[in-house]
């Protein structure tokens, strides 16, 4: 069996020798042209005049395109057709593409793009959440509300209450490979596009619309991305479409890549949120009711903001059984970049809301936040029995909860794993002892304060747009027994291709080297969903399995008939096909089947079962299952400067029966660090004119090697998946991102050692934030 093995990433050898090709590395044919955008300098206004003469006069410039030159659709929206590729009369944010320069070199195109003389009539720009609320500038007719029970009444009756507001900053994806596309015109008006995208089918769709051709005239290919994280789910559309339009117009290959600054200015980010909360609870910290108001800054176009905001609502319970809850969500339209998918897709923002509430409750009651968390956990259902060890839940949380273990949106939580995970992690991280040691340290040290925090994660797996939960695959077995495998998922470093190849190899009982992993290609597997929502291996693994099984059955039937045996007696293992006493190598079996005129090619299809819900009412089962994890982080802060660092992190994460533990642990580590970055150092700053001031790594700080925790212990929970997923594994791309929340809570804990007031940190907790919070807490406000 090739599954469950820690085999190296399929392209590892190419990567370490520098020969793995990304879109920008593909050798281009002679005469390839390069494209760059001329961008809006203001946040909101009408274009009065656009003089592009100077742009056109730059040596090397071949063509300049504006909205008027778009032959068919001028739209790159993944949802609401509200996102013109090139501005049409009005500009909506600083950085919006207005015209495109096509030139003989990348540099010439970029330089010329700066020379557009544009006169605007400025309109009032709505930049902030407050401004958007005041102007009632929003997507959808009003706020969405999900509720369970009567939260206001429950809070009113409760013996204690906390109330608060906090701000959560946006986050730049900072995929190290910027957005890139290359369009190659073909005969008869066809187009081949190489695009660094998580969603080739969407690129195909948007390019076809822009060229006015059926989708069959466009083929999109992507072998790998240099990181995606959601930032290449819809944000690649603009580059691919403009390259295709320019390539069609010039009949020459056209290529575009964003320079880092342009990339950060033009493309959407994780939504910034404000969350207001009110919660009522008893003396032990058991939550009776909670109310959230979530404000999401969506930017100028809808993009994926609605499902992002939905997912934020769907995660505002995180791991806690809330008797009464009300979640109100405002999706605000602002003159800023159109925010988009980012690892967790709104889930992190929703989750940190309730984690903040629990932290605040524990602080108010003077309890250990871990106890308050455990007391409020969902119950573990019987019959799960799949994972060990599984200590019983604290008795108080068991009674009466079995019948009602439902989320605020009415989904029964059947697979809750966090009681066991929590106990095990507290033990392995030595939480109690370290907490006591930190208290001692803090009592003795005035300047450097330490903090420690535990945070659990329960993350729903499935696209909440239910129809997206489908996948296709195409598998060929050649006469020599080698296998060519293709599916709709894309590779962005997460190791999807390797995992799925392991599935194919184990279905045929052959070594994984016999399986060729090929670029994702819309000509091979059509109508695919984005590789997103952590669903890559769940969906594509199953689709590949289905295709392999079809071929396997055909071979088995053929050989069984030849040997006059039952089909069930044919076994595929160890590189062989065993039929009774006869042993064929897999290659021999394939050759025999070919000679016997058996088709050795098959498609596979999979759709996730059980999911069904109403996103307007917020009721039903949006998720097939939940993935779990927990982390304990210890930090130190310098109270004089606000500087801080992570000293130690311990993680226990549930990947079900992991398809590849090495790859999964890699996902967990990377996700934690990215999540911690979101909440600590990664600060996006816009000025009053709506200009992003942090648009390069010189000013926008993602975690560096020197920031890695001194001690970093990561393990996978020895669990399974109660649902029938591919080999009972669980999705692992997004859930561990939210483990980073413990870093934020640990900073809050450290600040709270400075005084009695609740620190009420905003995110990201930069040095400035921490410094300010220390002052606040010391002054007792």
């Amino acid at each position, binding site marked *: 069996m090739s599954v469950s093995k*820690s085999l*190296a*990433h399929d*392209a*590892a*050898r*190419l*990567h*370490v*020798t*520098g*020969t*793995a*090709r*990304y879109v*920008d*590395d593909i*050798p281009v044919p002679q005469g390839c042209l390069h494209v760059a955008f001329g961008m809006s300098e203001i946040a909101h206004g009408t274009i009065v005049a656009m003089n592009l003469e100077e742009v056109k006069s730059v040596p090397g410039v071949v063509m300049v395109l504006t909205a008027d030159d778009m032959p068919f659709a001028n739209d790159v929206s993944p949802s609401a057709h509200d996102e013109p590729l090139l501005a049409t009369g009005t500009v909506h944010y600083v950085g919006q593409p207005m015209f495109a320069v096509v030139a003989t070199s990348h540099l010439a195109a970029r330089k010329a793009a700066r020379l557009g003389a544009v006169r605007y009539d400025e309109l009032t720009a709505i930049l902030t959440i407050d401004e958007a609320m005041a102007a009632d500038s929003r997507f959808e007719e009003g706020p969405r509300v999900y509720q369970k029970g009567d939260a206001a009444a429950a809070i009113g009756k409760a013996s204690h209450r906390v109330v608060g507001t906090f701000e959560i900053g946006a986050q730049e*994806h*900072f*995929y*190290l*490979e*910027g957005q890139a596309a290359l369009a190659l015109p073909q005969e008869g008006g066809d187009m081949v596009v190489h695009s660094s995208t998580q969603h080739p089918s969407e690129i195909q769709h948007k390019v076809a619309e822009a060229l006015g051709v059926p989708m069959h005239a466009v083929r999109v290919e992507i072998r*790998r*991305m*240099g*990181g995606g*994280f959601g930032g290449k789910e819809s944000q690649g559309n603009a580059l691919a479409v403009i390259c295709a339009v320019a390539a069609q117009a010039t009949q020459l290959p056209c290529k575009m890549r964003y*320079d*880092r600054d342009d990339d950060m200015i033009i493309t959407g980010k994780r939504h910034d949120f404000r969350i207001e909360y009110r919660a009522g609870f008893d003396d032990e910290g058991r939550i009776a009711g909670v109310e959230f108001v979530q404000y999401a800054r969506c930017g100028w176009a809808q993009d994926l903001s609605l499902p992002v905001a939905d997912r934020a609502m769907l995660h505002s319970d995180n791991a806690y059984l809330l008797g009464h809850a009300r979640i109100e969500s405002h999706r605000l339209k602002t003159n800023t970049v159109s925010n988009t998918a980012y690892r967790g897709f709104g889930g992190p923002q929703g989750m940190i809301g309730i984690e903040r509430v629990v932290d605040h409750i524990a602080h108010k009651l003077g309890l250990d936040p871990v106890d308050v968390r455990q007391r409020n956990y969902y119950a573990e259902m019987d019959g799960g029995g799949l994972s060990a060890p599984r200590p019983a839940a604290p008795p108080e949380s068991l009674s009466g909860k079995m019948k009602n273990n439902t989320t605020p949106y009415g989904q029964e939580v059947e697979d809750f794993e966090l009681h066991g995970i929590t106990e095990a992690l507290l033990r392995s991280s030595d939480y109690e002892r370290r907490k006591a040691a930190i208290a001692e340290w803090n009592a003795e040290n005035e300047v450097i304060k330490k903090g420690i925090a535990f945070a659990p994660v329960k993350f729903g797996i499935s696209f909440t747009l239910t129809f997206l939960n489908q996948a296709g695959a195409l598998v060929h077995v050649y006469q020599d027994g080698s296998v060519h495998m293709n599916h709709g998922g894309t590779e*962005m*470093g*997460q*190791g999807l291709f390797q995992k799925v190849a392991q599935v194919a190899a184990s279905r045929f009982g052959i070594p994984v080297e016999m399986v060729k992993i090929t670029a994702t290609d819309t000509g091979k597997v059509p109508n695919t969903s984005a590789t997103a929502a952590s669903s890559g291996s769940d969906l594509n693994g199953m689709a590949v399995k289905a295709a392999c099984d079809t071929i396997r059955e055909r071979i088995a039937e053929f050989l069984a008939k030849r040997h006059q045996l039952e089909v069930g007696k044919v076994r595929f293992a160890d590189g062989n096909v065993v039929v009774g006493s006869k042993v064929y190598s897999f290659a021999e079996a394939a050759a025999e089947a070919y000679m016997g005129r058996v088709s050795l090619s098959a498609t596979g299809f999979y759709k996730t079962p059980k999911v069904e819900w109403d996103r307007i009412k917020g009721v039903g089962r949006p998720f097939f299952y939940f993935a779990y994890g927990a982390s304990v982080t210890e930090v130190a802060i310098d109270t004089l400067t606000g500087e801080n660092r992570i000293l130690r992190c311990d993680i226990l994460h549930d990947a079900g029966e992991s398809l590849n533990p*090495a*790859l999964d*642990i*890699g*996902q967990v*580590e*990377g*996700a*934690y*660090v*990215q999540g911690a970055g979101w909440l600590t150092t990664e600060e996006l700053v816009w000025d009053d004119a709506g200009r992003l001031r942090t648009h*390069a*790594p*010189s000013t926008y700080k*993602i*975690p*560096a*090697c*020197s*920031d*890695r925790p001194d001690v*970093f212990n*990561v393990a996978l929970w020895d669990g399974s998946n109660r649902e029938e997923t591919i080999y009972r594994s669980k999705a692992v791309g997004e859930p561990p991102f939210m483990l980073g929340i413990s870093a934020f809570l640990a900073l809050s804990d450290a600040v709270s050692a400075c005084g009695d007031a609740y620190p009420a940190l905003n995110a990201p907790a930069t040095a400035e934030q921490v410094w300010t919070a220390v002052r606040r807490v010391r002054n007792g406000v």
Partner: protein
Amino acid sequence: MSKIHVTTSVNGDAVEFLCDPRETLLDVLRDRLGLTGAKEGCGTGDCGACTITLDGRVVCSCLVLGAEAEGREVGTIEGIANGEELHPLQRKFIEHAALQCGICTPGILVATKALLEKNPDPTETEVRYWLAGNLCRCTGYDKIIRAVMDTAAELRSESKELS
């Protein structure tokens, strides 16, 4: 603009090229010499994806002009393996799963190789700070550091055996 003629050596091979006076060495390597192992992550010297060596010194090739390579020795990721045989550092990066999307990997390997040549026995802290200019968005760095420490240990024991 008239082009400049540059004579240099890349990974030990004599190389000549013509480039614009303002063209970066990164662009020369990628666009003129077909060596696409060095990547552009920022173009401003902040991410390390373009790391190469110039006369053995680690530099960001996005901050060096092609013309500056005249008479120098340029080392890139493509020159680290010995034909088909991987350098121990490359092997260890594979073994430790120290890469995901892999786009930071060439820069990190070039930078690390230079470190180990200078300092065969670095502490973990030295490794972390040496690599602080090489950003990786995927891995969280843990496996990278383990791979480097493990390579250093292996290289040390090999050189002991030789001596």
